[in-house]
């Protein structure tokens, strides 16, 4: 038995020729050259002699079978005939692919579903928040149940390791504010007001908001990825069967770590922002650090700092709950993990900004 085994012969095309009244196919017919022959084969009529075929694979057999209505296949080697039989016996019958055009009712139905899903999302988020608060209540009654090791680990991941990026970002924001403020305020000879500009905007809004946005990008995604991959590998189901409460082991330490560390990160951001602003004011406007400090202490009320810090726990819970919720939405495949991770970040950032806007309106109305 000769079997063509080296790749050169495998890729050469089979030869289809007419010899007297008989069509003859010889050479190698495999998946590598089957497309070329598919264009040629309809030329042949009547009997097709296959005794010259040295190699035939399922793709070739499939092609021959699909033309066997118009052709009479002769001279097959026994092993080729067996393959052809096997292929003929297993050709799948596709069910009728009936597609309906999209009707107005279906479009309306889709919109309705999207609205209902959005409402369902809010319910689920509230559900997750309630679960977290309920577990927190249980910990208040039985402090022994607090997963301390996990809490410290997540506080390290979420808080401590975020300090460099948060500091750098806040420092640069302070620099930019001082620089832009200086250019404008110098026109009125009101350079000293740059201190108020920097302190109020950073303490009241930017310090906490930008920290929350960075943490949302960093942490919401990691929560989703970590919980999602555990969901994917059925680890969370395994926990349930072992009578371990996933909410207690997975959600509580993560969200609680955020709740503790986000205000601290906000404080770091405030200090670094003021530092950057003071530095730039000194260089650009000649406001010495001593003058900056005096002005800061005299003119900027502590209410601005409080307004900033009140928001931190709210942002922390928003980010944590959205991140954990998205992790639980991951289904069996890797693609859904990626989709949920990126949507968790987008949702968390959007929700943080929305909450900040609501706070602004509230504080403005309360005149704080």
């Amino acid at each position, binding site marked *: 038995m000769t*079997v063509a*085994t080296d*790749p050169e012969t495998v890729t050469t095309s089979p030869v289809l020729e007419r010899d007297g009244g008989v069509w003859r196919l010889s050479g190698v017919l*495999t*998946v*590598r050259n*089957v*497309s*070329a022959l*598919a264009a040629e084969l309809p030329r042949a009529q009547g009997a097709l002699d296959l005794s010259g075929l040295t190699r035939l*694979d*399922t*793709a070739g057999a*499939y*092609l021959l079978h699909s033309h066997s209505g118009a052709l009479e296949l002769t001279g097959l080697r026994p*092993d080729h005939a*067996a*393959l052809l039989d*096997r*292929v003929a016996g*297993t*050709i*799948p*019958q*596709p*069910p009728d692919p009936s597609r309906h055009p999209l009707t107005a009712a279906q479009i309306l139905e889709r919109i309705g579903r999207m609205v209902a899903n959005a409402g369902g999302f809010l319910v689920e988020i509230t559900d997750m928040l309630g679960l977290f608060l309920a577990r927190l209540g249980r910990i208040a009654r039985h402090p022994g149940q607090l997963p301390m090791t996990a809490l410290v680990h997540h506080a390290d991941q979420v808080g401590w390791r975020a300090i460099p990026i948060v500091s750098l970002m806040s420092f640069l924001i302070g620099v930019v504010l001082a620089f832009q403020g200086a250019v404008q305020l110098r026109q009125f000879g009101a350079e000293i007001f740059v201190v108020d500009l920097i302190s109020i905007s950073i303490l009241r809004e930017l310090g906490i908001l930008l920290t929350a946005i960075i943490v949302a990008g960093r942490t919401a995604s990691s929560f989703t990825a970590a919980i999602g991959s555990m969901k994917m590998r059925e680890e969370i189901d395994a926990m349930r069967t072992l009578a371990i409460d996933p909410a207690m082991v997975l959600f509580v330490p993560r969200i609680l770590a955020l709740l503790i560390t986000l205000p601290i990160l906000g404080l770091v951001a405030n200090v670094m922002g003021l530092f950057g602003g003071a530095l730039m004011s000194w260089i650009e406007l000649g406001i010495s650090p001593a003058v900056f400090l005096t002005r800061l202490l005299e003119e900027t009320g502590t209410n601005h700092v409080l307004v900033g810090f009140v928001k931190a726990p709210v942002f922390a819970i928003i980010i944590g709950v959205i991140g954990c919720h998205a992790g639980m939405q991951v*289904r*069996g*495949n*890797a*693609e859904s993990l990626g989709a949920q991770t990126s949507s968790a970040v987008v949702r968390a950032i959007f929700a943080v900004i929305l909450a900040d806007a609501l706070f602004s309106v509230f504080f403005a109305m309360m005149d704080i």
Partner: protein
Amino acid sequence: MTRDVVIKLRGLRNAFGADVVHDNLDLDVHRGEVLGVVGGSGTGKSVLLRCIAGLRPPQAGSIEIFGQDALNCSETARRAIDQRMGVMFQDGALFSSLTVRENVEVPMRTIDGLDAGLRRELADLKIAMSGLPYKAGDNYPSELSGGMRKRAGLARALALDPEIVFLDEPTAGLDPIGASAFDELIRGLSRAMGLTVFMVTHDLDSLHACCDRIAVLADRRVKYTGTMEEMLEIDHPWVHEYFHGPRARAAIATKDKVS
């Protein structure tokens, strides 16, 4: 007729740090046979498979596939060898973001000039040959049961009509009916397509039902090769325990009942 040797291993050595898995291992695999590889846990059955499939270079020794040196050859030559082999991983190792049909089409995409319509039809054919229903082609791997994922993995391994197929524990985790259907499938496909099958397995029923020859890994080498009958004669303690244990007797009993 002297049998055509498609895989020839000589003096193979595999070690993880100080832990030597294979030392001076020799093995020949003949064209068209179904070879079952057995051995206790940790004897490096899967390591051997990964080694031949080119996923792990051995520390020493030579691997010849289709008469070519598979270790010291150009990348093009290695790719040509790879295209003539297919691997079915234990859990299918299907790409989770693609449907089963798209998974089977992946290897076919490497072929220039293969028409997309024909590629799809061939993928459907391979899915059907692996014993999956037509609609399984549209499913994602996560929507399939373990047994169906194995079949889909086999369909992908067979996509290009390879000459050698490596199966890593093909029947592990299947119910007995599914497992014997899978044995039947492998046997049938190997006959129809002239496949050489290198099968790592623990399943004595599989060894009975589809293997022409069995290779036993022990003492860091292929200690014995031979047919099932020859295995029963060997008095190495592990081999004796393996082929004469209560499970083995049950497997032999069912085989005798069938034949």
